[in-house]
């Protein structure tokens, strides 16, 4: 029973972390698509020469507006908060033109410099309502509105306020472009790349397609480490459980051998038992994954988004079964090597 539970936890661990990785990336893609832009422009990577993350000047906006087929350009500033959270500086009037604006569930747009707007999940996680105060970036902010999730970001402040606070007036982290015909986005991107070498310029479709586990090296490595740990945990748990089982059944094994059971017959018995434990454990693990998903949705809906990734079910199952079977090798060998006389006299 304990072995089944341990394997279940192992499978839950794998599926939960894979689900969070997929969920986080899909959530980012959903927010990006929600902006309503056709093209995303980001500055070249962090530069050791400027000792900055090379934010772009707001003067790029009129430059982009003059480009063929570009009908609108606006930018945002992104500031990191704790964990994976960010605070996005946005010009609401421009954002309205780009995407149709936020749909407020409670309250409304910014009224004062220290106002924030947050999405429903962030509000639920942090227990915020309109008029609540929250401390971010070492200063208090008042929540002026709660909007429907899925557009741009979870937490937004006024662009100019964020620029001033960070000593980066007229600076932007990224720029969104709208073109007259979405089918023309790719040629516009290619034209801009020629004019702005080194800049990250992609259609939104391209950008969201990059948000996969394989394209984010950190996540890929993270999942690799988790799988490695899971295999080791499965191996140790099953190894100990089966070793104990072999010790407990020393007499039974001795009787079987005395009755003429071959080594392969005893190994087959042990491995079949291990397989049953691993399969039941995998099923339990998959079931428990729905529990962690529910927990995340209710405890930290804004910070962690967990998806059910069905294609990982057989992978997680194979990992747990492999770990379990590997763990059964030594106890199996021990059982096969037992002396019949000693086994029969074992108390």
């Amino acid at each position, binding site marked *: 029973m304990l072995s089944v539970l341990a394997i279940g936890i192992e499978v839950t661990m794998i599926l939960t972390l894979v689900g969070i990785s997929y969920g986080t990336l899909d959530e980012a893609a959903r927010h990006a698509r929600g902006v309503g832009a056709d093209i995303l422009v980001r500055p070249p990577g962090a530069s*050791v*020469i400027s000792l900055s993350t090379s934010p772009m000047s707001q003067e790029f906006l009129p430059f982009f507006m003059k480009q063929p087929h570009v009908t609108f350009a606006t930018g945002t500033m992104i500031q990191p908060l704790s964990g994976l959270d960010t605070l996005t500086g946005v010009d609401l009037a421009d954002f309205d033109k780009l995407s149709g604006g936020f749909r407020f569930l409670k309250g409304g747009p910014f009224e004062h410099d220290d106002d924030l707007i947050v999405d429903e999940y962030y509000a639920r996680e942090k227990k915020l309502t309109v008029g609540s105060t929250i401390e971010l970036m*070492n200063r208090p902010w008042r929540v002026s509105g709660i909007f429907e999730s899925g557009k741009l970001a979870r937490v937004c402040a006024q662009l100019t306020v964020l620029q001033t606070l960070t000593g980066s*007036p007229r600076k932007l982290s990224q720029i969104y472009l709208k073109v007259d015909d979405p089918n023309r986005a790719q040629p516009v991107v290619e034209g801009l790349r020629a004019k702005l070498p*080194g800049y990250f310029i992609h259609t939104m479709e391209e950008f969201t397609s990059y948000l996969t586990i394989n394209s984010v090296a950190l996540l890929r490595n993270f999942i690799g480490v988790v799988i490695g740990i899971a295999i080791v945990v499965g191996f140790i748990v099953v190894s100990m459980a089966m070793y104990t089982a072999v010790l407990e059944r020393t007499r039974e094994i001795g009787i079987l051998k005395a009755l003429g059971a071959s080594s392969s017959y005893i190994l087959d018995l042990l491995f079949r038992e291990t397989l049953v434990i691993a399969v039941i454990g995998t099923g339990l693990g998959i079931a428990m994954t729905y529990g962690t998903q529910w927990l995340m949705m209710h405890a930290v809906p804004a910070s962690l988004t967990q998806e059910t990734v069905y294609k990982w079910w057989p992978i997680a199952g194979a990992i747990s079964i492999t770990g379990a079977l590997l763990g059964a090798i030594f106890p199996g060998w021990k059982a096969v090597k037992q002396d019949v006389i000693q086994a029969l006299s074992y108390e």
Partner: protein
Amino acid sequence: MKILDTKLNLFICIAVVSGAATGWAQSTAEIFSRLDRAAPSFMGATATLRVTTHTAVINEDETQTGTVTVKRFGPNELHFLIKFTGENAQTIALKGEKLEIYYPKLNTIREYDIGKYKDVAQKLSLLGFGTPGRELAANYEVSNLGGDRVESQDSVHLQLTPKAADVLKQLTRVDLWISVKNNSPVQQKFQLPGGDYRLVTYSDVSVNPPHLPASALDLPKNAKRERMN
């Protein structure tokens, strides 16, 4: 033809006269030798600085002004603190592998571990501060463009092209003006791909000031600290 000869003679005269006037013009070997001699005794410096960042595609120049303090903590260990004032107020401190940025309006310090980029950040940002000539020769193809006068200071103008391919991708050329008086940089121009550049001009440079405690590079103690990576 005669007009051409006259112009050529005039040019030669100007060149000779300017060479005579700029008595600080030296051969590259002499400059390197001078920098090699000065480097070991470099312990620190303070200066005011003006940084102009030019973005070619939009033809925009952004200027930041402030002060810089440099202090040597070991043979290859230079720490610095750059304090920008005005609307771009920020303080940047590089201490070994740790880059700290202080935002005064947030009273917050963000800490970045720059790890393997430490040497590049230190050597590029502080290019000319206690830099031996042999180090310049090792890392750059150097052209000596002769004597020049920048910010009312007599200097030699060196044009440096990085030898390392990975640096060359980010930095196509550096123009460095070294003061004849105290062997410190008067101006650095970092030429980036695509025509962008970053021009850093130093004035009121004090090399090895008598009182430069380690605390001169400290950021406010009461600020909130955030680790960014």
